[in-house]
């Protein structure tokens, strides 16, 4: 099946920042993304888990598949939001079907 080169960007970010990130993405023209829940994790700021929590504690994972030429715009937009915050950003080469969607 015909596939096309794309980038898979995975941004793990604090839940209170989620809407700011997705708005920044949309402003940068990135209208496709998927948000996954995160149960817990560990990093320089220690270990945490979502169990029994009530507030908007915790993190979420935002996944964007985009055309390679739009990567920089996305990273710039995302970075403006996550810069001062805890969390991680990774970019992986991938292939997508139905390239017209991206």
């Amino acid at each position, binding site marked *: 099946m015909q596939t096309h080169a794309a980038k898979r960007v995975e941004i793990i970010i*604090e*839940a*209170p*920042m989620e809407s*700011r990130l997705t708005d920044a993405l949309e402003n940068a023209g990135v209208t496709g993304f998927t948000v996954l829940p995160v149960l817990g994790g560990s990093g320089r*700021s*220690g*270990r*945490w*888990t*979502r*169990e*029994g*929590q*009530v*507030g*908007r*504690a915790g993190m979420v994972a935002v996944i964007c598949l985009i055309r390679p030429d739009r990567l920089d715009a996305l990273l710039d937009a995302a970075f403006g939001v996550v810069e*001062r*915050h*805890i969390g991680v950003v990774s970019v992986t080469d991938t292939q997508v079907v139905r390239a017209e969607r991206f």
Partner: protein
Amino acid sequence: MILSFVLGLFASIARSELSVPEAAAKMMSLYLLFAIGFKGGVAVAGHGIDGHLLAAMAGGIALSFLLPFLAFALLRMSTGLSALDAAAVAAHYGSISIVTFVTATSVLSAQGIASEGYMVAVAAAMEAPAIVSALWLVARSGAGVRMDARLWHEILLNGSIVLLVGAFLIGAVTGEAGMDRISAFVVAPFQGVLCLFLLDMGLVAGRGLRDARGVISLGAVVFGVVMPILGAVAGLAVALIIGLSPGGAALMMTLAASASYIAVPAAMRVALPEANPSISLTLSLGITFPFNLTVGIPTYVAVATAIIGG
């Protein structure tokens, strides 16, 4: 009730894998907010709004504005926290913990002590002002604050404020008639849900304590106990000035003594991302919350009734 909390605390310190799902904890907190707001509204509908409502609101807001300065000064003196971290903690202590408030109302009603229904509205009003003070403290110290209209909007319309005030208004509008229809829901199981919720809070607090060894200095622990006492004293003073009933005064003391662990943490993550969130949370949830639950509330109730008279 307190025993449930102790059970949770014990279970998580003993590293039992007992845990309450996040969705269930949120549901219980929605229930408690709805029930307490509704009951407050019904009480107001029944007794009418006496002239003290506005005074109590103003007093609560003033407390929320001012307590962060006290907390900040104490922290800078007694701990090695940076101005940024101290301000973040101070915001938590100026704001309030609604579960502590709920527990206090249920202690009062167990002892048959009445209180002003509008204290629920006062609680809602005390959530946000402390954040302003804390951010002012940070801005003064020169660090960058990320504060915009959007964050204000999020804080003022945060879930617990909206639900609390909304349920309060619903209760005030429907009054006793509304209460008759849903009392089997908001009154009867209230104590039981609170028990299970405190069990969960104990689990979360215990986990926080366990993970936070090392993060927290002895000075900070002392702060976590002294600050609620000072807050309660300030709350009592305000209550006396306004002329609240003994029950109302105990609630005002509880509000002033309690520290936020839901609304403020989320706001701080956005506004002060460089502040270390585990310091505030450990202090508020791991030290001050258990202190208020076990020692604080009974003392506040006793002091308020002793001074103002049954």
